[in-house]
């Protein structure tokens, strides 16, 4: 029987002799939000890049539901990614962006799915021909989430998704993360926002200088004060 979830074993990444990530071993489980925290340069985005299959690790291996996960792996069709940049074509409108990616992912009824996703993220009433570049950052992030969820991925990766959102947008995003957790997806959230990460994280992984300095999952989750104390204690920040 293979272990469910995404398992990282001794994962490392070196760029031109500089070690960005060293011996990272952890498990991201389905139905769990895992928050990856750490100061700038700790290796958070590198870790997310490796999990997304865009970056090739120089050491270790990843297995997802028992199957190796690497660059070019077919499993990337089951990954959704929301970064701090929206990952959209600014000259296309919201519907065109979603239909394009729905087609690239082979989603049945791309137009219907795009319509449903726009309604879900609250963009159904946006002017049909308004290009995505004319959207506010908050609207772009909503559209980015719709794009990431189009193909119902089993693994959702978020890299500072709330960095451009106002408080109500951040609260909305937290609700979406909870909904995805409830749907049984693996959710990995890279963030600097300790206050936001605490209440929604089931697992907290703290990186410092590329190494894991804390990694634990708690059934009841973490409160913001605990996450703050852990972060300060483990990173000195």
């Amino acid at each position, binding site marked *: 029987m293979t272990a469910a979830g995404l398992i990282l074993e001794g994962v490392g990444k070196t760029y031109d002799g500089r070690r960005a990530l060293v011996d990272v071993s952890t498990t991201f489980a*389905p139905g769990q939000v895992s928050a990856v925290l750490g100061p700038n340069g700790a290796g958070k985005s590198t870790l997310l890049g490796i999990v997304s299959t865009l970056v090739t690790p120089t050491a270790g291996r990843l297995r997802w539901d028992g199957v190796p996960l690497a660059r070019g792996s077919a499993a990337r*069709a089951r990954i959704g990614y929301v970064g701090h*940049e929206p990952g959209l074509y600014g000259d296309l409108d919201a519907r065109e962006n979603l239909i394009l990616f729905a087609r*690239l*992912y082979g*989603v049945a009824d791309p137009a219907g799915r795009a319509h449903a996703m726009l309604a879900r993220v609250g963009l159904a009433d946006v002017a049909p021909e308004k290009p995505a570049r004319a959207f506010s950052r908050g609207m*772009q992030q909503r559209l980015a989430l719709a794009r990431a969820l189009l193909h119902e991925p089993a693994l959702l990766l978020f890299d500072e998704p709330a960095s451009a959102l106002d408080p109500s947008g951040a609260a909305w995003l937290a609700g979406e993360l909870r909904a995805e957790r409830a749907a049984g997806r693996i959710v990995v959230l890279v963030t600097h926002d300790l206050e936001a990460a605490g209440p929604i994280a089931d697992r907290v992984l703290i990186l410092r200088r590329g190494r894991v300095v804390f990694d634990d999952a708690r059934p009841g989750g973490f409160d913001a004060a605990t996450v703050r104390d852990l972060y300060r204690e483990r990173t000195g920040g």
Partner: protein
Amino acid sequence: MADGAPPATPGFAAQVLRIAAKDLRIELRSREILLTMTFLAVVIVLIFSFAFVVGDARPSPSVTAGILWIAVIVSGTVGLGRTYDREREGEAIRSLLLSPVPRGAIYLGKLVATAALMVIVEGVLTALAGFLFAGGVLAHVAWIALLLALGTVGFAAAGCVFSAALLRSRSRDVLLSTLLYPIIVPIVIAGARGTSQLLDPLAPDLEGARFWTQFLVALDVIFVTVGLWAFEPVAAGD
């Protein structure tokens, strides 16, 4: 479907066409690249015409061919750069690379879109060159169009790889031409020589033009094959 299999992804050719159609749809909306490329190409031809057309004297076929190919390559470089800028803005390329579309399909889709834009500009250029420099352009216009199309495929094949490699480079505009031009020298030579042999109004060298056409086909096969192989590592950029 969280734990289920992903949807069946469309075939390779369909993905190539989708990537190309996406680029062309964006361009159709803004016409930014097409207008810039055409304007630049026309200006280049006009500048040369002031230098070479004096009274009734017309430039030689080899000069006309050279002018035509210089305009094609310079305007094509501008088009390439801007096409890839659109991928860089908002990190759209990341979404594309994360999708299940094979890297080869992304590469060929970008190649097709770039070549399509260049071919439109070349239509305008050929007509202008025919009007300004030599009626010989019209005598073998289909063959000259074939040479230009073949040269365009080779140029776009190399250009798409370098543009992808330079996507995250700050000096990409300068570096693109610096790195690309030495690589495409054989294409420019073959294209210009073949074109000049067709432009001679009295004695066109059809055998010579046939040789350069075949040479361009061979170059295209090499450039596209190497491009398909090289695009995966350069696009990943890690």
